[in-house]
């Protein structure tokens, strides 16, 4: 990767999210943040820390405990011309807001024939790995990818967290922004200072290879990367894609890679059945049918709620990914 064109600072993902919010709020007075505990406390993960001090309680709002209220209120704000960034404390708690998201946020522009727009960024920490059991570990991205009208973005690194969140805030459409809390603090890296945006909808080839394409996003990208590094020791040459955005989807990048490798393994934490891996599989076999030399494999969470004690067994970690890589290449 070429050197970054501007001063950068080492940040973790929480700091990068915080920085993106701060920079975008300075840039655009219409950006407001709302949610449970986001104000004075700065969020239970501290992602909004210091924002209320800087921007006031008018723009960084502590709400009552009601996710439908948070998103429903954000709709009204968006219609009137603000750019709300509601936080759902954990992605697991997004479901009380499901009606507002599926039936209102996603459809408002469409149903008004384009008279109104409903741009907002719904941020939520998602995924397992912090010993949170099934109410602090869910990965609900597929529900939202299935809902036309929404964009779904999932960064894996601090730089992407900042750049993609900034773009999401500037985007005219509603964006679900899922933050991989498992690596909230563990993933560290250089992040450009000041205004910085990365276009939504471009996957990143984080490792070039020619034998098999390994597709992941969010926290699982780290496992995928780890598995690819292990695979190298076995002389297995893996190309790794970090999708970064599930909707819009960078299908070209996927098709290009799979047409080259002829094999694909997809990793996600969410339960397998009807997860986003299913859609990717369907698209790949539609577009790369004649290139495919093995069935596309999915390494995913199981079709169970997310367990507490056995979470390391549940998560599709590197060893399971590695096994799938071997199977797919030996097919």
């Amino acid at each position, binding site marked *: 990767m070429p050197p970054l064109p501007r001063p950068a600072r080492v940040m973790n993902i929480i700091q990068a999210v915080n920085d993106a919010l701060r920079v975008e709020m300075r840039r655009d007075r219409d950006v407001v943040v709302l949610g449970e505990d986001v104000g004075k406390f700065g969020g239970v993960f501290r992602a909004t820390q210091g924002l209320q001090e800087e921007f006031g309680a008018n723009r960084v709002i502590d709400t009552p405990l009601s996710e439908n209220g948070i998103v429903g209120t954000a709709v009204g704000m968006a219609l009137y011309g603000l750019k709300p960034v509601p936080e759902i404390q954990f992605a697991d708690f997004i479901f009380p807001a499901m009606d507002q998201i599926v039936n209102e946020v996603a459809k408002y522009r*469409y149903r008004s024939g384009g008279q109104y727009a409903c741009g907002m960024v719904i941020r939520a920490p998602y995924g397992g790995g912090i010993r949170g059991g099934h109410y602090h570990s869910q990965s609900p991205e597929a529900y939202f990818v299935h809902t036309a009208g929404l964009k779904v973005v999932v960064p894996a690194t601090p730089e992407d967290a900042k750049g993609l969140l900034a773009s999401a805030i500037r985007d005219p459409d509603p964006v679900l922004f899922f933050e991989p809390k498992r690596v909230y603090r563990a993933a560290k890296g250089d992040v450009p200072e000041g205004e910085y945006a990365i276009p939504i909808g471009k996957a990143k080839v984080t490792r070039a290879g020619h034998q098999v394409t390994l597709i992941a996003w969010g926290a699982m990208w780290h496992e995928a990367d780890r598995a690819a590094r292990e695979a190298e020791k076995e002389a297995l040459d893996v190309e790794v894609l970090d999708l970064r955005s599930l909707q819009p989807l960078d299908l070209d990048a996927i098709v290009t890679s799979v047409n080259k490798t002829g094999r694909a393994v997809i990793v996600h934490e969410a339960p397998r059945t009807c997860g986003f891996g299913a859609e990717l599989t369907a698209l790949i076999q539609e577009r790369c049918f004649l290139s495919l030399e093995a069935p596309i494999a999915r390494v995913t969470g199981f079709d169970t709620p997310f367990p507490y004690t056995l979470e390391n067994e549940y998560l599709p970690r590197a060893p399971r990914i590695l096994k799938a890589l071997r199977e797919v290449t030996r097919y």
Partner: protein
Amino acid sequence: MRRERDVSPVNRRRGGDGAQADQARGFDAESAFPLRRVMRDDGSADPADVKLSDPELVALYELMVLNRMLDERMIAMQRQGRIGFYIGSIGEEATILGSARAMEPQDWLFPSYREHGAVLMRGMPLETFVCNLLGNAGDAVLGHQMPCHEAWRPANFASVSSPIATQIPHAVGAAWAARIKGDDMVSLAWFGEGATSAADFHAGLNFAGVHKVPVVFLCRNNGWAISVPRDVQTGSETIAQKAIAYGIAGERVDGNDLLAVLDATRRARARAAAGEGPTLVECVTYRLEGHSTSDDPRAYRPAEVVEPWRRKDPIARMRAFLEKRGLLRDADDTRIRDAAKHRILDAIHAAEREPPKPEIGTMFEGVYAEPLWQQREQLARLRDELGQPELPDDDEDTDTALP
């Protein structure tokens, strides 16, 4: 301003018991939220209570008549199969128009699905409204929604949604946004008494109560949620008293009394604008007809229970009021009705001249600000498919009407 006891059967007390007395000592719904009225049943009113000019009063009456005649005509058109569905406001015109009239032009209005009179009052062309009913190429929402699901940005009239109560937090958010931006704007949300059971009612009023958001919550308590009567909807004696749960102001008015509704909404707007927070205004009215053209109320509601309410028709009351003030004579009324009829017929004719279907590409418009590759691909393929000879239409397979 008179206060009378509400004797509507649907708002009757649901049986007294010891626990109730123990419950809220000192709280009595009737005295806390008396039913406010301006016009007596016979249309007489204390002149001091009338705060509109004579031409304004007549104009409101004209709108009531237009609204009623539009509903009647559209119900007939639906029966003739010329439109697919209709949902109107017969009996609730005073509630809808009185409250709409109390708001300022810069205010935002969040409708449920019966407030067509309000959007017309605020300037949506009648023809455009009829295009929405037809879902044709002239429809401002591109045929995307069912009839009566209009949106009209020029009047700050939000988009009608079928899911009940969702517009309530939207109204809160918009008003909050205006306050953040420093704009003098109050928003108003309309909803039925059935909507008060929904999650979004609770969230909207609670958020607004905590943050003193400048919003007016206007409940059309029309006695019914489809087949469910008011007293199966909630155990509270009045809807207005639900304000207490949120620490906000509440009022209860005769919803068939346009002047009382107007006054209450004006008071509520003034409170909101003055930073005193939201008000829940309960307008006690009645749904005289079926829920919508898909409904047949005979299956659950005997005609007798409706009868007393037919005698309280808000348009008759307004007419009597105007007559008593010497503002309306029989001839005027005939003229008003004729004019409304012609406006409606003209609008229908103009609307029916539009192509009956929006262009196929509109189906993919507005999902996102710019279509993604999925929408582009799918549209391209559909255009291709439609170029092919189609099988005969199989509409005969399906005979289920929308309820």
